[in-house]
């Protein structure tokens, strides 16, 4: 009986909380806005705690990989050592201290930039593979448009072709904007639907 009551209590809490926050956007009642602000502050605090929980989970997973030796365990060891060093440096030097900034500027940033560079190469390979995997008109359109954009975006003074540049501008301003707006409208409707399902209690991701 208690087990049954608890989900109902969670449902009431979620629906009431969501409803108050949502109504706060339209109804300018001081009491409602105050309650809404309190709820939003709680949510921000809980989000911060969740980041800590996430880091704890990350550390636990990598610790388990080290104590149960398996392939790739050395990467987990490197990750844990890097975490401990970074944590100590930031704790002692403060997040805006010179050593903390050094770690961000000369280690984290280059590593993430390298991944971005790999991504560029990888996409070229993926597009080549796409021709083999899905040889249809959409693939050809996708590749044709990508090539057109690359050609038009490259500035070569002697090989500047006005027609290509105009074609690119037209594609960007008409079909791309229309397509992107269509997709965004669909995504927006999906977002509204997901939110309202939770507000109406049809979806209960918080219920154990």
């Amino acid at each position, binding site marked *: 009986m208690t087990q049954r009551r608890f989900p109902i209590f969670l449902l009431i809490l979620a629906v009431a909380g969501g409803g108050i926050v949502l109504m706060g*956007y*339209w109804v300018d009642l001081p009491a409602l806005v105050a309650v809404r602000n309190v709820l939003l502050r709680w*949510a921000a605090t*809980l*989000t911060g*705690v*969740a*980041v*800590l*929980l*996430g*880091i704890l*989970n*990350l550390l*636990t*997973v990598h610790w*388990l990989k080290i104590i149960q030796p*398996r*392939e*790739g365990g050395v*990467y987990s060891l490197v990750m844990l050592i890097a975490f401990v060093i970074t944590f100590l440096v930031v704790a002692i030097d403060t997040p805006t201290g010179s050593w903390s900034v050094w770690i961000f500027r000369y280690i984290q940033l280059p*590593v*993430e930039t390298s*991944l*971005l560079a*790999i*991504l560029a190469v*990888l*996409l070229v*390979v*993926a*597009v080549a*593979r*796409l021709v083999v*995997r899905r040889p249809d008109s959409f693939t050809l359109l*996708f590749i044709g448009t990508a090539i057109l954009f690359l050609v038009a975006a490259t500035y070569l003074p002697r090989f500047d072709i006005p027609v290509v540049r105009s074609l690119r501008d037209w594609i960007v301003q008409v079909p791309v904007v229309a397509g*992107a707006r*269509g*997709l*965004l*409208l*669909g*995504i927006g*409707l*999906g*977002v*509204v*639907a*997901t*939110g*309202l*399902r*939770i507000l*109406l209690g*049809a*979806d209960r*991701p*918080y*219920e*154990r």
Partner: protein
Amino acid sequence: MNLANWLSPPVLGLALLLIYTLLFLFFRYRPIKKSQPSGLLSIRELAPLDQLIKSLGRALESGKGIHLSSGSGGVSGIRGASGLTGLMMLARIARKSAKNDKPPLATSGDGILNALAQDTLYQSYTAAGSRRNFDPSQEQVAGITPFSYAAGAMLAAADQPLEANLLAGHFGPEAALIAEAADRSAQLTIAGSDNLPAQATLLAAADEVLIGEELFAGGAYLQANPAHQASLAAQDALRWLIILLILAGFTLKLLGML
């Protein structure tokens, strides 16, 4: 008060919410004819979700797992909806593969998503009567920045034998790294995101891609509950309404009345 004030974004937003709620309630509780199949409404085929359902069957036969990556968007704000959709899909995958020796692997880039994924899996296994198969170490936070998350998810997926990877949540273009790693391990990748650059890169890198709002139809396809089918029908009706409004606005503009 002029028309522009009446049609301000807050008023339009409220109108949209009310119309959607009414449509949702209509499709959810409308009387169903006896001749109609148990699924409330007929829905068009989506190849990526068909592939997902097939791969769930193959995973059960081969004893391999399914990896669900719910992204790094958290659960709040606009980005949160795709992560919540990913969680709901995880619940259905877990329910369908509860008897599998290899439980699904769930990675996320956010603490709340991870906690909810743990709850979701526990609940699904309990409902399927296979609580002994529940393994909390199968829900991992792979990294807390987008690229560290992608790198972590690549490694987590490479660690165990998988039949398919489902990327359902908020990603940036870095999602292509996960899809590429899965491709190297000869695993099927089905991907959907609410982010347009991610959709563009995944179109090239993943085997099957959910475009636009197709990700949000996942619940209806996996038969999460009748509310998802009603929600999908309400979305479709609302889309038609928006199309009609755009056409009306275009006509009025053309006639010089707007």
